[in-house]
């Protein structure tokens, strides 16, 4: 009989605690679903953007444009029939040079700087000071060489960039890129 008396309370609890809890779970599920959909949407948006960009690239670098660049700057030509090899045998036999041909790398030009191995020559332990002196001289020349080499590389880099500036990309493309770079720089501030 006593249990009967709690029946009303049971219904009350069900209404106040269990149903909202169920609703909570449900709404949580819906929220997750919405998040998932948003992610899916973002993926689709990204795919659409990729498609748009691909189309733009294809249009800007269409075959007629590539042909023009090739004619003006790159000057690439189709390989000649001699450049094709019949198979692995032909490829392997490419390497076999006749004996009487001297390979350039084997001929050491006179007046070339001493090989760098001098810098790491085995030094007699008895006279360490002298050893350091001996090693220092060639080391300095190596450092000098490095500096000069770096200078040369920089110069070559500058030239390469200059040539890119001049020809490979059209003036308007370069302008576009510079504008974009400026805009990005401003955005970062």
């Amino acid at each position, binding site marked *: 009989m006593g249990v009967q008396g709690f029946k009303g309370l049971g219904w009350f609890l069900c209404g106040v605690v269990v149903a909202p809890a169920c609703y909570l779970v449900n709404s949580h599920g819906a929220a997750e679903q919405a998040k998932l*959909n948003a992610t899916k949407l973002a993926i689709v948006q990204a795919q659409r953007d990729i498609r748009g960009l691909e189309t733009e690239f294809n249009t800007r670098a269409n*075959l007629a444009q590539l042909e023009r660049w090739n004619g003006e700057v790159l000057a690439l030509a189709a390989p000649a029939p001699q450049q094709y090899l019949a198979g692995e045998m032909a490829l392997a036999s490419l390497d076999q040079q006749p004996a009487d041909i001297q390979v350039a790398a084997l001929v050491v030009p006179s007046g070339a700087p001493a090989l760098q191995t001098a810098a790491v020559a085995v030094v007699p332990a008895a006279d360490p000071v002298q050893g350091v002196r001996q090693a220092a001289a060639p080391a300095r020349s190596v450092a000098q060489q490095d500096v000069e080499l770096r200078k040369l590389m920089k110069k070559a880099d500058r030239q390469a960039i200059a040539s890119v500036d001049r020809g490979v990309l059209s003036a308007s493309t370069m302008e576009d890129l510079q504008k974009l770079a400026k805009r990005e720089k401003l955005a970062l501030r």
Partner: protein
Amino acid sequence: MILSILFGFGMLVVIGKLALLALWAEPATARDIAASLIPPRGDIVDRNGAPLARSIDAWSIAVHPNQVIGDKNALAQRLAELIPDKSAGQYYTLLNSGSSFAYLKRRALPELVTAVNTLGEPGMEFQREPDRLYPQSAMAAHVLGFLDAKGAGVSGMEKVLEGQLSDPARRGKPVALSIDARVQAALENELGRAMTDLQARGAAGVILDVRTGEVMAMTSLPSFNPNALPGAAPPNNVTQSVYELGSTFKPIAVAAAIDSGTITNMARRFDATKPLQVGRFMIHDDPGDEQFRWLNIPETLIYSSNIATARIADELGAAKLQDMFRRLGFDRRPGIEVGGARPLWPSYWGRVTVMTTAYGHGIAVTPLHLANAYATMVNGGILRPVTLLKVDPNKVPAGERALKESTSARMRQLLRLIVLKGTGRKGEAPGFRIAGKTGTAEAASGGGYDKHRNVSTFAAAFPIDAPRYVMVAMLDSPKANPAIGVYRTTAAWTAAPVVSRVVSRTGSLLGVRPDAGRDIDESELLPLIWTGPDPKLGAE
């Protein structure tokens, strides 16, 4: 009581609707997301998947003249500065027309949209609307065709594939054409260069796969840009224009003679010592090609002798020659998706007609007809329908036999000899084993022939020891240009070098490995070519 019943009923309806929604309504978003990736019109791609036609979201700028609130005069001035398609006066008239909607610019650049937006006029509307873009601009324009203002295909494959491209169920998957964009670009580039160098009126070129009937490249010049078509599109000279293709028909006549058993011996000679008189009609050899002697079959083709070919055709007879032309499809439109012109088939086949059609005069076909005939001649004798759609290698159409296998083998040897020893020497591409025949016909004009205008054609197949492709290049009315070493307007000087250059550039892209060490065996025919004390090689 009634009120409570009504209330209860109302509640029931609401609960029922909720239950329906809860049970059967699927989340709308998931479906929409998937659908938004499907383009409003299907893509067209080449055989390797490179896009040839795509739908994009383009900006359009429109105005609601009845909602414009600013100074219309100033606005018209600014619009004329930004969009110079119309004058300020025209914009002013438009803005005062009182209509509710008018496009100012369709397919506008984003910069222009931003600029017009900064005018701050609330009567302006900026929309994204689907638009068709051809990324390769004028490339393969005749193949692709274009759309009308409503977005329906009106020519080319856009028209042929209209149903498939606009069907929501099928448009998500791009349609692959048989065209190879790289080969197409090379063909257009080389033909365009030849056309400008030689001041030709037009040009046409086609490359066919002889095993499947696929068109690997097809171009017709002058061309157009389907992205911005100014007026009527020029015709596709490969499929829509018929030409008398001259000497390129000689191998077909010879093939008919071999196939029907009229000629069984390649050493058989025909009199080409002097022009051939038939009634009132006189058949000459072209100046420079005359041999003034009896010619055997290989020599007839190498020196491109009209007289000897006419004699062969005379012996062959009208019925057998017509039969061969019919088997090669010269009596009907080309069976390609985009349609084509009906050939000009002689109405009366008298003796003179038989003789002249054998060397390509008096019958006019499209360059595509010729290409497919050559494909049939070299591929073992099977005529296959020509197609612009990519063919599944496992579903190649069987085709129908037009020539015997043995005739095809003989024709391969003869065609190769023409390039090695005869008029087609400038058509050779090192390593690619080209075989083919030149043809120069006087252009038809005003019911007669124009002696100063040629239609120069070179029909070629490569690699001839295992034929894969046929290429036809045609130049309409080229002019000599001694500055670049072209001294004559015949096909040997104009069309043949185009084939040589295109094959050199694209042969390896098409899967043919150049090999200088391979060739077809023509040793049994070589002794038949008389190289007397002063061998005179054919110039054309």
